[in-house]
């Protein structure tokens, strides 16, 4: 029983770090993703193509590799004292922003041209058209893929243990090694499961809220 309490406390310690990575990533990757998506749809080629290339690189390489690049890269280049947590946040934000950008782009491009035209002939400014007409329709359409990304992010935070961030999985592994037992690893799964359950419920709620109209 004492061991169980010890493991639980250790995992809760990790949970704090996991939640911090999760929240900070969303907070920064969502707006950055919108900027990247607008850039990837830009009519200026000097903006569009570098951004498309960035999206290709980030989505085309493993997140774990990106973590290592941002975690250990600066040291190799002679920059001393890189904070590993900062490296994790940079890698996660950049990675998720690129995925979010593609989801935003899909959502924005799925809105029929007629919606923009109807706004224009009614004398709305481009900003008003975007915020009063387009945005909510985009949000409704991207809720399901966004739900997927949020769930993936919860579980991806476990990759941070590769560069010594003490999140849930790192703590589970530490318990395994110090106590010579296997079950903390399975126990850690329960933490992810509960987090994902909560997120799923929240997304179901939002989806229901936006179900008052079709189209």
């Amino acid at each position: 029983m004492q061991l169980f309490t010890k493991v639980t406390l250790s995992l809760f310690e990790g949970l704090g770090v996991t939640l911090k990575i999760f929240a900070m990533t969303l907070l920064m990757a969502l707006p950055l993703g919108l900027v990247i998506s607008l850039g990837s749809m830009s009519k200026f080629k000097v903006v569009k193509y570098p951004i498309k290339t960035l999206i290709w690189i980030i989505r085309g390489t493993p997140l774990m590799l990106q973590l290592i690049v941002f975690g250990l890269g600066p040291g190799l280049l002679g920059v001393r004292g890189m904070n590993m947590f900062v490296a994790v946040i940079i890698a996660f934000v950049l990675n998720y922003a690129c995925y979010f950008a593609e989801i935003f782009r899909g959502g924005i491009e799925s809105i029929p041209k007629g919606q923009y035209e109807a706004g224009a002939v009614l004398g709305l400014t481009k900003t008003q058209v975007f915020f009063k007409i387009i945005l909510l329709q985009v949000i409704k359409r991207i809720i399901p893929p966004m739900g997927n990304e949020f769930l993936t992010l919860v579980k991806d935070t476990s990759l941070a243990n590769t560069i010594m961030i003490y999140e849930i999985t790192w703590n589970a592994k530490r318990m395994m090694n110090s106590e010579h037992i296997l079950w903390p690893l399975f126990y850690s799964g329960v933490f992810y499961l509960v987090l994902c359950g909560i997120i799923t419920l929240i997304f179901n709620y939002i989806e229901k809220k936006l179900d008052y109209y079709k189209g």
Partner: protein
Amino acid sequence: MAILEIKNIMKSFDKTEVLKDVSFSMEKGEVVSIIGSSGSGKTTLLRCINFLEKADKGQVVLNGEVIFDGAEKKKMTSEEIRRKQLNFGFVFQSFNLFPQYSAIENVVLAPKLLAKERPDFKHNKEEIYAEIEANAKRLLSSAGLETKYDNYPCELSGGQQQRVAICRALALSPEIMLFDEPTSALDPEITNEVLKVIKSLADEKMTMIIVTHEMAFARSVSDRIIFMDDGVIAEEGVPEEIFTAPKSRRLKEFLSNVRM
């Protein structure tokens, strides 16, 4: 003086010339229908009038003022275009209602946003909004939608949606209403409910240009008919003339191919 003059409008998409030098004018209170087969350029002409498409050459003159000149289109700011578009109400073939707003919200959205630009807005906000809402209800009721104020577009039939769309355009009190095939997306049996609304506008002396495939309707509602063929006005005249004594070979062919 003519309320609207269209002078030598030309428009190409890539290398296809869709409008080749189109000119016509109309008087206040006049109803003009544009007929012609698909691809003849009638929708493009309508869209050039309120700059949804920007003509390559030619002018749009409203009440004697040049509001669009193809030679100077690059100089027009989007703010200028926005202001000038407000002279026209536009009704789309596919309605284009905003799905997340109820019927009445669709109608009041633009007037409320525009009201914010009024100098007395801060002072009289409540009154202005109340007035806008009362006006929207009046418009919807006169289109037979008094029980549908709070319904969302997805809960309305196509005919009802199009009537809401007409009210939405009217709510900004445009000088000229432009209709782009307003009944083409509708089942034949509900076409009439939309045509009735347009007819009642004609009776109130609303200035209108209607692109339509409904020949019987065009004949009964219009003061004048324009027949477009291959990017030019092939023939124009009063409905009787056009439908009973067509002159050009193309119009004769067109009329023999459409059901009256």
